[in-house]
């Protein structure tokens, strides 16, 4: 009797998961499909024939391409900076045992729990006072202030599993601190660093709420999409959406491939 009710509840749960995933994917699939439809405004119900013209039109969107370039500039600074800050904070927080580190930890986690728009606002208010106007520079700093927290947490959780004997052995054998750091600490942390860099890339690239408050009159690809989407519903954005989603699926497949072990270990 227990097994039959178990089966039933499992069945219901599976149906629920199915509906949940449909809810997550249907809007995305519709958006992607509309990118191939010849109608403007994009639609999936009013099918006017398969076309690739919106994809070709993407190449002529100069402003969008310029904004995309800005996005990559920002990512290029935010990712290394966040990983660097996160790594430093993780090492200090795990290696120094003092009451003060608890407060430091709380301060460093706080941006993660702050609404994104406020991080943008505080950054422009601060830099305007110094005499720097809102531009890509302020976006980089505003984004880093909260993105760096994620590398910190990821690297910290890996450091907590570190075997200190290796470092001690290297020290006893007379390795210089630089060599020790480069040959023992960094290789041990490599997976965590790669994961945090990937996460920082995603978060920086897709960030909107913090960016729109700290960018001034410049643009990134997300602020540009928002601007265009607010004004009108245009199939060119759908075509871009198709590219974004495809790249994401590709990236997620690679991620799962490298993290298979995580599931098989359970």
């Amino acid at each position, binding site marked *: 009797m227990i097994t039959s009710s178990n089966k039933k509840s499992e069945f219901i749960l599976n149906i629920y998961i199915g509906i949940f995933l449909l809810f997550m994917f249907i809007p995305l699939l519709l958006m992607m499909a509309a990118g191939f439809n010849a109608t403007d405004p994009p*639609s999936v119900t009013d099918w006017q024939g398969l076309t690739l013209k919106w994809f070709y039109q993407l190449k002529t969107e100069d402003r969008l391409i310029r904004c995309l370039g800005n996005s990559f500039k920002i990512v290029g600074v935010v990712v290394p900076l966040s990983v660097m800050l996160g790594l430093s904070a993780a090492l200090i927080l795990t290696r120094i045992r*003092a009451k003060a580190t608890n407060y430091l930890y709380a301060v460093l986690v706080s941006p993660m729990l*702050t*609404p994104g728009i406020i991080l943008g*606002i505080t950054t422009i208010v601060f830099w305007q006072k110094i005499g720097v106007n809102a531009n890509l520079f302020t976006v980089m700093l505003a984004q880093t*202030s909260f993105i760096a927290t994620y590398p910190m947490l990821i690297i910290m959780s890996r450091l907590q599993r570190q075997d200190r004997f290796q470092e001690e052995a290297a020290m006893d054998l007379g390795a210089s601190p630089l060599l020790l750091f480069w040959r023992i600490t960094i290789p041990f942390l490599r997976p965590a660093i790669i994961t945090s860099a990937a996460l920082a890339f995603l978060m920086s690239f897709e960030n909107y709420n913090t960016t729109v408050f700290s960018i001034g009159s410049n643009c990134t690809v997300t602020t540009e*999409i928002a601007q265009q989407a607010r004004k009108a519903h245009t199939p060119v954005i759908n075509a871009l959406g198709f590219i974004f989603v495809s790249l994401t699926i590709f990236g997620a*497949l690679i991620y799962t491939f490298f993290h298979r072990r995580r599931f098989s270990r359970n």
Partner: protein
Amino acid sequence: MISIFKVYGRFITSVFLLCVAAWVLILIILPQIFMIDRSFKYDYRGDRLGIINNDLERLYASKLVKKYDLDFGPTCNEQGMVSVSMGRSITEGKKVGEAQRECEVLSSENKIKLEQEVVEINSQIAILFQEEEVAKTAKEAEFPYSFRNYVMMSGLHIKTLTKTIFYSIFVSVLALILCYPVAYVVALKSAPRKAAILFLALIIPYAVNELMRIYAWLTIFDVKGLLNTILDFLGVLALDEDKVIVWYKYPGTVFTVLIYTYILFMVFPIYNTMSTLNRDQIEAAQDLGAKAWRIHWRIIIPHSKPGIAIGTIMTFMLAVGAFSVPYIITRGLQPKWFTHIIYDKFFESSNWNLGSAYSFTLLLISLIFVFVVMSLFRVSINELAKR
């Protein structure tokens, strides 16, 4: 402190300390202090300094126009109209070439007059500058801080804020209810292979650009979108006769998309804590005859409390600070969201002090929510972030 210096040496350790100090001070603490400082300074534009600033701005603008006319001659458009600043216009219909020639003549006639005007403006600006200095020192002598920015919030804005908070609480509670079973299935109820596939299926929408996920809903909510077409097919509406529903008018659309956009920020924290639960505990409870709800209530939920807390905080924080979702989905057909009022204070009326006060209010509300959730679930901030 000593051990880290011993292991990594003075140089590397100093670099770490410097990085963390810069992060804490330049990226977190100082910007916050500057914003809070600003929020307590009232920007009274009706006083002498405000009027002077206004006048200065006006004078600069007119000087710029006159300078432009002096340097490039008055602009003539295709109809042969001379710019208004010259105080003369030419009747339409004349040929462009003719009009241009006329412009050149005009500019030489009025050149002296224009130059005189610029000189006059310059002297006015100089006087105002002196007055500004006086007014500035007078203002600096006053005590700058007050609660005026906070007291000034109008009834409408308070209503918007309350609505935003109410919505966000509802979003996070609903997200929790919807996500708990999902996290449970992926973390505890699936064989490794199935768990990996489900995890992948959840990662994909999570990683897709937030703006794209919001934008995708336009295909559904448009007047000729999926929803109306289905209703048309069912005979409820008639698209051809303009018998349609404009979905963007209803707050339910923003609510749905908020849930859709931020729900996965609830799934992953719960999944992460839940998957560290030893399954033997569940089996032991089953062997001892515990009912399913009891296993959840006594074993699984207590174990995943930190994840539930962080998920609830994250979804609330994202919803209350949401700018993109209402920006795209309301299409101007619904009342403003609180974040948009803040945006307008900064970039439309450019009253940064008032805007700072509004955003500090929003920050305080999120902080209160964080503490309420933490004490409700009895978790500390240290547990909170270990996801």
